């Protein structure tokens, strides 16, 4: 390839021009990031030290906003809610997604492609539509869908949008329903990369289906599972639309999530300072979680090499 004229050594000037044009071509991302990413982020840090209603004067208040949110029990509820709803929504989801993916992957099921499409459909549904439909399903009235079914088992009607656990279960169900198909598809893709011979060998050794899942599928899916767990973690931390539509702008303490908390501070209470302080707290919570995630990943990665 030495003879190719395009690859001959370049002069300094030409090198600089190449470098410049490279920067030029990558610049749109950085410009957009500066305007829509970095600037709002830094401004949010700045705002956290001010009291501001969005329209009037900004007054410097030092750490008062942080003091305020750290003394606000609702702030802690919002963190706890986020974790509870996150766990309720994602853990069963991952278990189900693996089972459904295994079923779709096995040769036993007919119309596999149709089922794959159907299972993926919830993911492309608008969140608002999902929240409205589930609002009807988890209706407080005795004739609400779930309450009616419960009444057949002589359970009293539950106030789905007001009681501590029901709120969380209802929102987690929405999350479950919307994301289970997405994760199924990811798992399915992972399963199809597992060599068929492993299953054949297992069958010859007399492994049952549950043994096949436990001893072949799951270990081979480890990287995929990690990916799904990470995206699910991020997704739960960002949980916002479901509680907002399900609970309304008032966002009861039983169901408010972290992002909903800071949104309400800013746009319902017009308190952009405390909202920014909450955003920064959220930022640090995410950093901590990311570090924990990284530690777990590297450990799992190592054990895989050893095993």
């Amino acid at each position, binding site marked *: 390839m030495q003879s190719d004229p395009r690859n001959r050594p370049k002069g300094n000037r030409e090198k600089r021009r190449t470098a410049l044009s490279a920067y030029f071509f990558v610049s749109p991302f950085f410009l957009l990031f500066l305007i829509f990413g970095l600037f709002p982020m830094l401004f949010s840090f700045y705002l956290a030290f001010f009291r501001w209603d969005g*329209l009037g004067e900004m007054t410097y208040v030092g750490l008062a906003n942080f003091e305020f949110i750290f003394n606000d029990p609702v702030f802690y509820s919002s963190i706890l809610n986020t974790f509870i709803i996150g766990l309720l929504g994602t853990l069963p989801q991952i278990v189900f997604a693996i089972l459904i993916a295994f079923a779709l992957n096995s040769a036993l099921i007919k119309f596999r492609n149709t089922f794959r499409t159907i299972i993926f459909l919830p993911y492309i549904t608008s969140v608002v539509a999902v929240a*409205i439909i589930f609002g*009807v399903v988890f209706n407080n*009235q005795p*004739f609400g869908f779930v309450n009616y079914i419960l009444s057949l088992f002589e359970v009293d009607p539950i106030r789905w949008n007001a009681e501590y656990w029901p709120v969380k279960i209802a929102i987690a169900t929405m999350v479950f329903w919307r994301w289970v198909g997405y994760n199924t598809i990811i798992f399915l893709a992972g399963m199809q990369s597992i060599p068929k011979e492993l299953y054949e060998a297992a069958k010859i050794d007399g492994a049952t289906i549950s043994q096949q899942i436990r001893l072949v599928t799951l270990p081979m899916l480890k990287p995929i599972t990690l990916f799904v767990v990470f995206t699910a973690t991020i997704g739960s931390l960002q949980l916002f639309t479901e509680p907002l*539509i399900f609970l*309304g*702008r008032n966002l009861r303490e039983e169901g408010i999530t972290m992002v909903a908390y800071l949104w309400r501070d800013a746009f319902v209470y017009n308190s952009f300072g405390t909202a920014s302080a909450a955003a920064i707290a959220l930022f640090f919570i995410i950093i901590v979680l990311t570090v924990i995630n990284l530690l777990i990943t590297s450990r799992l990665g190592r054990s895989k090499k050893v095993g």
Partner: protein
Amino acid sequence: MTKWLKFGAVPLLSVSLLAACGGSDGENGGSSEGVESETTSETIGSGEIELVFWEFGNTGYDKLIEEYVEENPDISINLQNSDMNDMHDNLFTSISADTGAPDIALVEEAQIERYRTAEDSFNNLYDLGAGDVQEDFLDWVWHNGENADGDFVFGLPTDIGPTVMFYRTDVFEEAGFDSSPEAVSELIPTWDAYEEVALQIYEETGKLMTDAGELIYNARRDQASEQYFNTDEELIMDDHPEIREAYDYTADFFDQDLAGDIPLWTPEWFAGMDDGSYATMLAPAWMQGVIKDNSPEEGIWSITTMPEGAGNWGGSFLTIPSETEHAEEAYDFISWLTAPEQQLKSFQDYGLFPSTPAVYEMPEFIDYEDPYFGGIPTAQVFSEAAQQVIPVYKGRNYYAVDDVMKEAIDNVSAGDDRDEEWEASLDTIDRILAR
């Protein structure tokens, strides 16, 4: 199998109901929880100057605008309608960012408080000649659109929401009462009488007096001479008995099972209007459109005065953000739109109750008889109510505080202790105000 089909049909039906009602619930003070409405936009007229006009709810202004652009061919108006909360949030954001605000914005009465600190962002309509039309409007509404000093006016009032008592003639008759508006008005002059009648209706027919405690609370709240804040923005709920009385009165209804616990603007609430499960609805003038939409049969609902006077719930102002380049044209348009002649049309077509008392004297208004409400002169009932309204200062945190109270009422309706809820609400309100 058919049983399961029924299960499926219930949510589906409710959803279609919800969708059908989505359009009407945004008007004035209705919190349209769970309803995501789209922004619709249409440009009317082909003039050189285009005015962008943001509105919400069902105003019917498109018809009036057509009239206006015919007379003013150099103007065209781009009318953009969206959900009430969305529109106000967008206005707030664009004003805060100093870019993107429309030439004209419809601002709801309680929402106007949010913009009080932003005089710079709006045109002072006094500078554009609003002083000349001030006399046309009800005094108390006009002052709601002013700043505290009274030298800056944010908007021209479009309509108001004087509260009356809607009631079902069939339920009243079933309970053995005369159901004419005069008789019902005499039967229920006070809140004590309202409670007694509620008990009787419950005994005779097994029906509730009202579907949602929120409406009783709202009615009494709106009659209060002061609500949550005084004009110095200090919270006065604790040492000012009227709100506590409204709250206790509502709780009494729950204790005696006289009120349902169905939240406003939900599909069940809309359905309840039609199936006669409750006898009265304490609501403002603009609610008549909602009732008509949801309970189409004529002559079932009627209107009479509310016990112990009227309050005001809702109403809007037309403002001109200072970003506009056509403040004068915009002012000409909004002063035309809020003039008595146009307000009469808004009332006849969409039930928006006029903020200009001159309309109350017009023969077309006085003689207006609504066949839907049994052919009674509804306009007179409303205008009587409008003139009884005592102006109240709402304050910039009005909505936040009111939401907390709604949550408390909701909890009480589910059986929580009223005193504990009251204390908890005050704590929550204190924290909101400390922000």
